[in-house]
């Protein structure tokens, strides 16, 4: 498909108008978003104001922290589980793997709903802790609940990615390392984890992007949770502060896009975010 003569594609020129419409379709909203972000009282300095205004800065920092924590926890859990599932054949393994994909089918609202059922005021965790310690543990309506929901949502996809990658690792690599005297732990550190690196980067980036942008879960848990998508929603819908909402949106998009681009460059793979 590379070195073909130009006129081979004469008929494909017909697609050019489609290409232009397509580019416009994408670029116009983005451009407009950026322009509106600079349309507030302080003009384009509005972008800088975000970093100065404590309310917005807090929202940005806590969202980043939440996304980072979710990513780390998800990768730790998923790597352990993924390696375990690839390396061990046990009855029910296929069923377990199939069930892993179930949470993927639930929207953020339902995930939030599940968090409340588990860690809410009438939740299972509350009941169990009350029976055990006399005190009711309730953390659904906070960052901890959001963290739990995001991890719950992200682990399945990450486990699947890691399993697919682990299955493709050449077992000979591991055997060669062992023949050279490497212990199990060294094999893990020197062979297996480096082999999984592209998958870990890709899955981590998607996990991070999802956690940065998810809204349904946060909204279901509590309207007071101070993450960026909630702040944007509040500024836009409830306070009609459109310029700030646009600037925040643009910053959120840029941070997420940078994370995805970084992972893409590091892993060489195509990484697509979920929102």
């Amino acid at each position, binding site marked *: 498909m590379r070195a073909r003569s130009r006129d081979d594609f004469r008929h494909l020129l017909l697609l050019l108008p489609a290409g232009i419409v397509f580019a416009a379709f994408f670029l116009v909203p983005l451009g407009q978003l950026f322009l509106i972000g600079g349309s507030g009282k302080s003009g384009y300095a509005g972008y800088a104001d975000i970093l100065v205004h404590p309310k917005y800065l807090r929202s940005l920092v806590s969202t980043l922290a939440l996304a980072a924590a979710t990513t780390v926890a998800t990768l730790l859990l998923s790597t352990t589980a993924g390696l375990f599932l690839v390396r061990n054949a046990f009855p029910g393994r296929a069923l377990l793997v199939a069930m892993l994909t179930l949470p993927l089918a639930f929207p953020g609202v339902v995930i939030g709903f599940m968090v409340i059922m588990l860690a809410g005021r009438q939740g299972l965790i509350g009941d169990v802790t009350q029976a055990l310690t006399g005190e009711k543990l309730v953390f659904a309506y906070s960052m901890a609940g959001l963290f739990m929901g995001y991890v719950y949502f992200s682990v399945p996809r990450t486990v699947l990615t890691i399993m697919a990658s682990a299955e493709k690792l050449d077992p*000979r*690599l591991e*055997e*060669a390392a*062992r023949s*050279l*005297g*490497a*212990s199990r732990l060294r094999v893990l550190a*020197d062979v297996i984890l480096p082999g999984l690196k592209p998958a870990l980067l890709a899955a981590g980036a998607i996990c991070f992007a999802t956690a940065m942008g998810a809204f349904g879960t946060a909204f279901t848990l509590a309207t007071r949770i101070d993450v960026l998508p909630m702040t944007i929603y509040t500024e836009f819908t409830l306070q009609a502060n459109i310029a700030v909402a646009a600037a925040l949106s643009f910053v959120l998009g840029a941070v997420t896009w940078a994370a995805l681009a970084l992972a893409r460059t590091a892993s060489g793979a195509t990484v697509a975010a979920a929102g």
Partner: protein
Amino acid sequence: MTEVARSVAIKLRSCSKTFPDGTKALQPLDLDVGAGETLVILGPSGCGKTTTLRIIAGLDEPDPGGKVLFDGEDVTPVPIERRDVGIVFQSYALFPNMSVRENVAYGLRVRRRPAAEQRSRADEMLAMMRIEALADRRIDQLSGGQRQRVALARALAIRPRALLLDEPLTALDAKLRETLRVEIDGLLRRVGITAIYVTHDQAEAMALGDRIVVMEHGRVAQIGSPREIYRAPKSRFVADFIGTMNKLPGRAEAGRFVTAAGSIPWSREAGAAEAAFRPEDARIVPAGPDALRATVTTSFFLGDRTRLVLDVAGTAVTVDSSERAAWTRGEAVHLAVPPQALIDLGDRA
């Protein structure tokens, strides 16, 4: 001369292997490999040759009762990490996250040798394989032949007690395979290490092995020097697997082998028989009492020789001729096979 190897004699005693699904990959096997010997295990896929290698390496355990001895010491329960053997795989199995030098030094790094020793030993090994210039390359910048040289250097850097090679040349193209075969042959002889070389390629086996073990269905079909195996195959399987072998049905009687296309001299006890012979042992001759009648089916000019496929009373017979003559399809010719070149594969089934 670089000190490279601490060669051991390897013995297998009644090593069999049954896989979890019940397949018997290996029938009880006894095998003796002398210190410094190059033993080639040859056979088609699924014959148990790789299983045998993995048992020697410590990557697979033999079924209970089997024993692996290194210089008389029972290493059966010793895991590969402490067996001190070098392994070279078909897929190279180089660590993609390390440079060439780091790959070669890895065994010493694991053993916590000083950095200077790691480096000098790695460079020494790379020099031995004549790839010093590649020391700082990434693995994905190397060709297949270079990768396999790095894998050999890495395996030898730990001064292993034996070198195990699992189809090391199979992934390379024909020309490179031959070059590297010559190099490996030189290396094994120079280093004098006990080497076990698994392959499905009979040309490789013939060229490299001090002795060849031909395996079939988890059993040893024949053990011997390349010449013994080529000249005196003990079974139809070995005869078919090594080189090209013609098989002509007929009857042995009164010192001759009689076929529908004439008879040739052969002293064998009388009876229905099958005479086997190699393409290079038969010759196209003028008509005569000791020649078989044949018709040319095809002829291929191969450069250094011409390969003829003849029809001898309905049987296809391959003959290699180094004569510069040209034959045409359908031409009638006569075929002589010297009696000492005829191999008896037993009575006809």
